[in-house]
């Protein structure tokens, strides 16, 4: 076989395999969307689920997923930024820094079920937060923190050395340099990364089964006082997210239209992830453009 034929065959194989991926992915998306889209309506997105009757919706679950995401980000973003800044700017190369880097790596690859069990043991039982949004947010923080640290580090590393040095040479303190010069430049990367990481929070179920719980108490959407137990904003109420809800109705659903609800909810989840991805791209591009245009 001549080298040319081998080259052609190899190219064909590579293209076929890549095409296979696209097919699988289209099939997957098509399967979920075709089965689910027909079931999505305004009513489905806003009404509460039914136990045994038909026509239940996913309103509270959708809200819970979004609210849990916000809670998680409130905890993760400052911590992750802080830790990332430390790692990239203050940490001196050495054994300790290497060790911390190792820890971040280990933390990011822990199986979600182990994190969930840890949450059940510590946040739910030892700290006594119970099955609650707060416990869930803490468990998700464990996943998201290492991602956030890495994203921040990447963002800061992308800042041109000259800009950093110029600022330091002007006599600004290191902290001021980081805060006022480096972080703004790193923002597009950090923001894009955060949004992509948020998508993972949205789909997580294994860890939340054990921490945020599987029930959705009745919510009173006119009560925005975070202290009242029926308020949607109370972080100490149990909350079933969309992903957990899919798991639950798949396994124990009594409603006659449970399969349709599961399909509809799956489609909603996929669409949300899609929106997150597009948003991340869009915002990243927007900010990038702004920068390059003014520079």
């Amino acid at each position, binding site marked *: 076989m001549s080298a040319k034929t081998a080259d052609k065959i190899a190219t064909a194989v590579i293209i076929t395999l890549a095409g296979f991926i696209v097919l699988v992915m289209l099939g997957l998306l098509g399967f979920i969307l075709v089965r689910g889209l027909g079931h999505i309506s305004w009513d489905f997105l806003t009404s509460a689920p039914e*136990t045994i009757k038909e026509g239940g919706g996913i309103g509270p679950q959708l809200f819970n997923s979004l609210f849990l995401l916000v809670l998680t980000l409130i905890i993760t973003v*400052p911590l992750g930024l802080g830790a990332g800044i430390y790692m990239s700017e203050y940490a001196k190369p050495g054994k300790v820094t290497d060790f911390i880097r190792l820890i971040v790596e280990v933390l990011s690859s822990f199986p979600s079920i182990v994190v969930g069990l840890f949450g059940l043991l510590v946040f739910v039982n030892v700290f006594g937060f119970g099955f609650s949004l707060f416990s869930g947010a803490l468990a998700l923080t464990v996943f998201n923190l290492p991602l956030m640290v890495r994203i921040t580090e990447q963002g800061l590393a992308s800042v041109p050395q000259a800009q950093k040095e110029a600022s330091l040479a002007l006599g600004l303190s290191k902290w001021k340099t980081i805060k006022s010069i480096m972080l703004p430049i790193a923002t597009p990367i950090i923001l894009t990364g955060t949004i992509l990481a948020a998508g993972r929070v949205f789909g997580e179920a294994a860890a939340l089964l054990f921490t945020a719980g*599987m029930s959705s108490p009745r919510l009173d959407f006119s009560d925005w006082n975070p202290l009242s137990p029926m308020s949607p904003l109370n972080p100490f109420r149990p909350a079933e997210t969309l992903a957990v809800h899919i798991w639950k109705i798949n396994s*124990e659903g009594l409603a006659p239209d449970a399969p349709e609800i599961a399909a509809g909810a799956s489609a909603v989840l996929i669409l949300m992830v899609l929106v997150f991805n597009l948003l991340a791209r869009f915002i990243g591009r927007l900010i990038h453009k*702004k920068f390059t245009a003014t520079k």
Partner: protein
Amino acid sequence: MKKSLMLVLTLILTFTLAACGQSNTSSNKSNEGSQEGTNGGNAAASELSGSILAVGSSALQPLVDQASKKFMDLNPKVSIQVQGGGSGTGLTQVSGGQADIGNSDVFAEEKLDAGPAAELVDHQVAVVAMAAVINPDVNVDNLTKDQLVKIFTGEVKNWSEVGGPDQAIQIVNRPASSGTRATFEKYALGTKTDDLEGSIQEDSSGTVKKLVGETPGAIGYLALSYLDDSVKVVKYDGVEATEENVANGTYPVWAYEHMYTKGEPNDVVKAFLEFMASDEVQNKDVVELGYIPVSKMEVTRDLDGNITK
């Protein structure tokens, strides 16, 4: 340009910081708030207020959930949270004091050590009956206890040996820790069985139903509330799994659904448990969700399985 960016960034920073601070304070406050609520519930007897946390059996969860909504309508100041997580979780949490009520498919004595189990007070709220189900393509209508035992112990591997077509039997079982399996083994088989090679194990009724309905030659068991046309129900020793037969004691495969409290319940929990036992719930929600009301039972059964009329 840089200035505006700085502004944006400071805004983001202040926002996150503020949000951080706010979420801290609000969480503290809400903690206090809920504590006050519980204390208030203990003190005031005239109008019920307080919060209840019921955790446990996912099989019982829909019933408690539905009843709790009604109860909250009647007592607007009471908030009840119902959690799944499994009987084991429910018993752990009620025994450890994290939950007010522990929902369980089995007697606490079967899961907990004698010490902690003795502290728990049993409230039986419903009866759940189970039936063996098979793939609709298998033309078998009745299985005797002996045949079932042989199937689930692997002695009989083909449907032709129990009067069906020449087709391999596929067992869809529950995990060894499952309460449903414990009930089925205790009252339908009368013996514990090993997990056979190649058997499928699913904990959730929905998945069991799906797999039995789709897999050729499959057999499994489901609570009556999950039965529908996708699977075929077989008679047990010639007795049909109906509410009537369970109530008069001719159909033996059933178990109580328990709601455990640690010691005697406080006023709010007590009122809720009384509500669970009232006709309003027993004759409506219990029946609607496919359970059998405790009040209808003509026989009772104790922990060891002794039946009294």
